[in-house]
């Protein structure tokens, strides 16, 4: 057992050590300071901007920035949808896959453009290689870059700078961060055993019984795999995602993926510290998601280590729960991956979340309800600061003082936008469609596990869509018209309403006249204030969803404790 906890501790340590390094690099890139790749990338970026029709990227207002996000993402959605629908006549289709249903293609396109990668299909049996790398792989870069750009614009606004230019930010997020790291990562993954080929599946007689043939799916996996985790995308090349030995063959590749999953969202908090010139505050804020993450890891890993009591009785002793898990990862790496991937809105899985004990299901749902345990690519950091603004407002009310954050007055408009983000959009996009689905559960739900767990399956699917996570309790039969369209609504609402609100919030903050710091100012870089913020997060973020947690994983845990 100790060995497992050591693995978990070392992985966390690596993430914490990387955050300030990568965070400082990201800050340098977007503050236009010199960075190591300048000589190669300046000319490339100039060419991209010129072909994009923008020789001198000028600053945008919050509303212009938001419109550019929406327009570009819509153009990408159309490209992806067309490639998926036309895959039958497009090249690189060795398994001769035909046209998917229109609603599956639509859901898939929306899901990938929104950085979610919720998959209502099995990769190897549904899409051609071209669809995978030229449509889905494309959005893995652009949707992640959109998230980073929004976070940077938000940080600029928060620190009183103009928001910047969306296209220039998105291009730099790709050329300076995502693409270089992906090239290096893909080569390392290939060396470690991940395939990268355009050849089709291999079929041959199996060793023990030659009358039985084995078919091994292959494809250009390595380059797809690294951006899948680095960009918080999470969409697997194969049906079983990173549990598939070709996506994640050993402990080394698993470590790379875990670190890649958390590196950018955790670094962006430090990026804020460099922008604001207040690393102390950045580290204090950093402790909020880190502490929640560690708590959820302990809950999840303990449950998986202790295993399923019914099976343990059969084995005559305690054994970890290995249903849906691979031997090479065991309980510790599986629990680690499950918590990291739901914390960061990546959504890749190296074990099947449906088969986790209820403690694990609780942690995954909790992560997706809060959305700030480092959170999605860019958006997680922005949400965290929106919570800080709400905490400033709440504490300001308590002491009867005008709330200020970083020397800027928090007024009605800011509080309305921040509460819209946190208190309204997320619960509405999850609980209302889940309520409708459960009201017509025999016709609509497609639940595969009976009892309390079935309710968790439905809630999980919408939470995953609205949080732009993309993992699932995959036993759920989600290939239907209802699931494809209803989750599409949650995907879009959970992505674009908050992005627009964040940009408007940043815009209004950046235009405020700074108020000088006095003895009466409420300091936001103290342990006390961070503690209050953590309280605000848990109360506002978690209480809304408490009934869903109580009826799902908590009830299931009691069921198991009571002997099934």
């Amino acid at each position, binding site marked *: 057992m100790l060995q497992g906890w050591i693995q978990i501790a070392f992985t966390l340590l690596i993430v914490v050590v990387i955050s300030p390094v990568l965070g400082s690099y990201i800050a340098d890139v977007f503050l236009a300071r010199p960075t190591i790749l300048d000589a190669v990338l300046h000319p490339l970026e100039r060419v991209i901007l010129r072909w*994009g029709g923008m020789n001198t990227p000028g600053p945008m207002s919050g509303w212009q920035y938001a419109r550019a996000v929406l327009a570009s993402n819509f153009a990408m959605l159309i490209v992806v949808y067309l490639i998926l629908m036309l895959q039958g006549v497009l090249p690189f289709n060795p398994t001769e896959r035909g046209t998917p249903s229109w609603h599956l293609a639509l859901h898939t396109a929306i899901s990938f453009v929104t950085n979610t990668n919720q998959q209502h299909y099995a990769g190897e049996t549904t899409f051609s290689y071209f669809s995978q790398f030229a449509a889905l792989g494309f959005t893995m870069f652009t949707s992640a870059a959109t998230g980073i750009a929004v976070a940077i614009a938000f940080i600029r606004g928060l620190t009183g700078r103009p928001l910047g230019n969306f296209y220039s930010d998105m291009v730099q997020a790709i050329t300076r961060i995502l693409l270089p790291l992906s090239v290096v990562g893909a080569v390392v993954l290939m060396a470690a055993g991940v395939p990268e080929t355009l050849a089709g599946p291999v079929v041959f007689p199996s060793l023990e019984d030659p009358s039985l043939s084995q*078919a*091994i799916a292959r494809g250009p996996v390595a380059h797809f795999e690294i951006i899948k985790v680095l960009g918080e995308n999470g969409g697997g090349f194969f049906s079983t995602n990173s549990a598939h030995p070709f996506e994640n063959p050993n402990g080394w590749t698993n470590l790379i993926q875990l670190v890649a999953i958390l590196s950018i969202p955790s670094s962006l908090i430090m990026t804020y510290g460099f922008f604001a010139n207040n690393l102390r505050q950045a580290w204090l804020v950093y402790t909020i998601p880190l502490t929640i993450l560690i708590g959820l890891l302990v809950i999840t890993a303990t449950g998986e280590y202790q295993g399923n009591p019914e099976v343990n009785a*059969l084995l005559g002793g305690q054994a970890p729960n290995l*249903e849906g898990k691979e031997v090479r990862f065991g309980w510790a790496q599986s629990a680690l991956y499950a918590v990291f991937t739901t914390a960061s809105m990546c959504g890749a899985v190296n074990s099947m979340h449906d088969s986790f004990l209820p403690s694990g299901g609780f942690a995954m749902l909790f992560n997706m309800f809060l959305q700030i345990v480092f959170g999605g690519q860019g958006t997680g950091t922005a949400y965290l600061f929106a919570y800080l603004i709400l905490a400033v407002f709440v504490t300001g009310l308590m002491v009867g003082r005008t709330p200020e954050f970083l020397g800027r007055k928090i007024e009605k408009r800011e509080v309305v936008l921040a509460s819209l983000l946190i208190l309204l959009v997320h619960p509405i996009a999850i609980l209302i469609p889940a309520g409708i689905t459960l009201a017509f559960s025999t016709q609509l739900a497609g639940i595969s596990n009976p009892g309390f767990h079935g309710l968790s399956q439905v809630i999980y699917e919408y939470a995953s869509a609205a949080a732009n996570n993309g993992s699932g309790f995959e036993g759920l039969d989600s290939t239907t018209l209802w699931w494809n369209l209803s989750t599409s609504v949650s995907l879009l609402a959970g992505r674009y309403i908050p992005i627009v609100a964040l940009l408007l919030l940043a815009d209004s903050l950046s235009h405020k006249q700074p108020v000088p710091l006095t003895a009466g100012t409420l300091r936001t870089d103290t342990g006390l204030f961070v503690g209050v913020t953590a309280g605000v997060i848990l109360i506002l973020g978690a209480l809304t969803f408490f009934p869903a947690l109580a009826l799902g994983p908590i009830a299931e845990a009691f069921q198991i404790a009571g002997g099934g």
Partner: protein
Amino acid sequence: MSFAREVGRAVRFTLVLWVLTALVYPLVMVAIGQIVFPFQANGSLLSNAQGQVVGSALIGQPFTSDRYFHSRPSTTRYSTADPSHDAAGILNTGVSGASNWAPTNPELRRRVRDTAAELQRVGIQPTADLLYRSGSSLDPHITPEAARAQIARVAAARGLPANQVEILMAQNTEGRFLGIFGEPGVNVLRLNLALDAIKH
């Protein structure tokens, strides 16, 4: 900015970034893979003396007889099918999958009980990994405990000394990364190929 210019810019940036990230990047990586890492890039395929593919070092195969170490139970029978009865088209693409059964699902209870009874019938003391189905249905490994529980049976069926089988098992055990990350696993296909390679 006018609506038309806004749309035009969105479309142009989409196309430029598409060429970079969806064509140049993947195709360059495929070329690097095929030139620098041809073995891994094509699926770590293992061939016999005649040059025919017999499996992949990373993908498990089903084994049920006494002469072989058994692998873990799989929802897709390790992506195998009878070529003359493959209505589901498994051999066209290859598949992966998991049970996705919750710990409270009565089906899981029933299946685990049946699997345990079957293992005991053939003389294997059940371990957790031999009762639970894997995440990918292609898991190439079993735990060292599960392998040790099968040494005596395989050695007897092949008429080999148990310690020789044990040495082969140790040689085909893949450890943790840096001794820290992941769990050790015995590669079942490699171990069984090594058993077949012993000259009598």
